[in-house]
């Protein structure tokens, strides 16, 4: 929102207090949808925090030995066991998709329809790859190693329970993101954001800011992955 009246506002800490004390909006020039996404992500942070804190609490108090992650998550490549190989690739793919998302947002700002759509699509493909690799990892753990939510051959049964629950919950987030990325890629290519076409369900005008909002979500999902990665694979 380019509002000339906003340019005159003070910056820094003084600006913060003047914004909070002012009328109409508290976050000056912030789109409603964007503000909403930020608050939603704050709420979602609490969801993941609860999951991870529960995991830490149970892992710390359980009496059975906890499985050793670099063995459980290792892959054999040409007969050589490589710890955390798959997970390293997954993390790399997901972080890269954050980069392509950032580019999509940039081209969105520039109203560059083709490049923006391309990078949204690339991000979607990155996310899809991640989900695919996760499916592969799950099936390896389930069918090859015999890890189940209610027990596993390596040690404490909560290992499988927390692993499937938390990565599953995160994977659901990624999948939802991927679905929206594909939908938005289509919308961008179709030019909805240039013409301000009204949404089918919401009847609200489309705008490139939607790409930025989706970007916020996508970066958040990546950030959460970093924590899950650290707590499950490195601890």
């Amino acid at each position, binding site marked *: 929102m380019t509002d000339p009246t906003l340019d005159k506002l003070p910056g820094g800490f003084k600006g913060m207090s003047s914004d909070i004390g002012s009328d109409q*909006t508290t976050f000056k020039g912030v789109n409603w949808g964007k503000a909403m996404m930020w608050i939603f992500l704050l709420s979602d942070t*609490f969801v993941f925090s*609860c999951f991870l804190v529960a995991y830490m609490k149970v892992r710390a108090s359980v009496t059975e030995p906890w499985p050793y992650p670099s063995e459980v998550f290792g892959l054999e490549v040409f007969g050589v066991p490589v710890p955390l190989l798959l997970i390293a690739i997954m993390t790399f793919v997901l972080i890269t998709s954050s980069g392509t998302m950032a580019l999509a947002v940039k081209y969105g700002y520039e109203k560059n329809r083709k490049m923006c759509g391309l990078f949204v699509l690339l991000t979607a493909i990155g996310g899809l790859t991640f989900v695919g690799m996760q499916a592969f990892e799950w099936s390896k753990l389930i069918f090859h190693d015999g890890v189940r939510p209610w027990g596993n051959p390596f040690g404490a049964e909560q290992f499988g329970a927390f692993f499937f629950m938390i990565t599953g919950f995160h994977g659901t987030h990624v999948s939802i993101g991927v679905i929206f990325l594909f939908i938005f890629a289509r919308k961008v290519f179709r030019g909805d954001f240039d013409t301000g076409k009204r949404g089918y369900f919401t009847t609200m005008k489309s705008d490139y800011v939607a790409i930025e909002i989706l970007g916020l979500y996508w970066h958040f999902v990546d950030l959460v992955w970093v924590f899950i990665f650290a707590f499950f694979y490195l601890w």
Partner: protein
Amino acid sequence: MSDDLNIKKSSKIKTKSSSVSGGGTDIDYVRPAELPEQDLYHGHSFITKWIFCQDAKVIGIQYTLTAVFTGVVGLILSWMMRMQLGFPELFPFLTAESYYQFVTMHGMIMVVYLLTALFLGGFGNYLIPLMVGARDMVFPYVNMLSYWMFFVAVVVLMASFFVPGGPTGSGWTLYPPQAILEGTPGSEYGILLMLISLSLFVIGFTMGGLNYVITILQARTRGMTLMRMPLTIWGIFTATVLALLAFPALLVSSIMMTLDKVLGTSFFMPTIIKAGELLSYDGGSPILFQHLFWFFGHPEVYIVALPAFGIVSDLISVHSRKNIFGYRMMVWAIVIIGALSFFVWAHHMYVSGMTPWFGFFFATTTLIIAVPTALKVYNWILTLWRGNIRLNTVMLFCLGFILTFVNGGITGIFLGNVVVDVPLSDTYFVIAHFHMVMGIAPLMVIFGAIYHWFPLITGRFLDEKLGKWHFWTTFLGAYSIYFPMHYLGFIGVPRRYFEMYDSPYVTSAVGMNEFISIAAFIVGAAQFIFFFNVVKSLRLGKRAEKNPWKANSLEWLTPSMPPEHGNFGEKLPVVHRWAYDYNVPGAKKDYITQTTPPSEVLGAEVEKT
């Protein structure tokens, strides 16, 4: 122009000279609009207008009706419970199983599906856009989804009455391991439906809650600063933020318990021997669930209490024709109570077997909360002081609220003080305390608010005479239920007892139990006076003129009453002052609405708050 805002808040400004002509000159005082006009979808058919409606006001009424429906179910359940406790064995169908199912459903319905939904979904939706001067919620479509998600949650919850085994009977706290083990009623399907319903509720609420927060933060009208918002909005806002941060813990614990039940994981399930058999569970932590549950559960108390605090402040101010005393302190108290409520959850777990050292920390934080809460009480009564008190039904409910809330708040200090909690926890003292403080007190506010805003919603007043009958039976009845009940707790009567048998120290309380039960039947029945009043007044009530209470806040200043979709007609209102300018010295009328520009109240000393 924007320099106007930089004038220090406390400095008084004299109104400008008469050279400024009234009307349309507000541009001189208020910054120009930052936001373009909101794009609204106006429904055309019956379905888009009244069912899948995107108008926050209709959604608010939908929320209210659904919540009240669940509340009536909860009320009937409470009658059943009191029937058993006061006159055991009178009804053979009241078995221990059904008693515990009634207890559980009553608790969960009243706390989550009635109070939370009514305050935030009902009052929040109706009042937020009107009071901050917005045309609607920022995302009407998501807001509509929020209601329908809530509706589905209620359907799932009610469905649990009809599944094999009936609804869950694990107590509203749903403590594992018993919640999902045989030996507790409804441990097969009832508990699953409960957990699913709660998850749906959380998802639905999140959609609505984001709307409330962003509408308040980003969609206020010109001149409406945060510190000019009515306290109702402050209460609902803070409660919604709490809900957005506390419900995640409920969602997570619901998911984990569902997995424990369905997949046989052991998050909350330790080694268990049932009927001599070792179950397959191993190594989980039941106390972890309690931590998660109360990390949600305690803020939940304030999710119910804070909107009540806010609303009652406005009602008291309007009906005692006086500004709310210590507005800024009231705002800060709401915010501080909200923030502190995340650091007190384990005071529900003093005797849960957690590390006893936690007792010191949580007792201290709990009692610190008492300070801002007490200040709010002082400010309410100081608002009455030297006011001009209209003793109508609305005010009566406010006064009833003050008495029950102070009473329940003080017993809360008993229970928060860790060592006093040891003998009293899990007794009827606890029941009496929380019914007084988060049952009766918020209900008083809800009724007061309905009597207050009914003319706005329908254009007609509720009947005063019936209202007074309703108030006195409800207040005196509820007080005589819960005040003596504390003393059952002193005797040591534990809660959640289907029957007392002949314990030597309990037989003496039989008379009191009968008395409480009779009072409960009367209070419950008195609510039907209210329903009758609503139905009657909808058709035959006295017509209300515009702004019938002579209030200042924006919801009364809409061009049509009841307000239409879009709320404010052609032009959004512009706000020049806080909502509490009653009886300003030098002003001609005893109230100055928020939209009155300084040029129109010549000679009045106006505090720029």
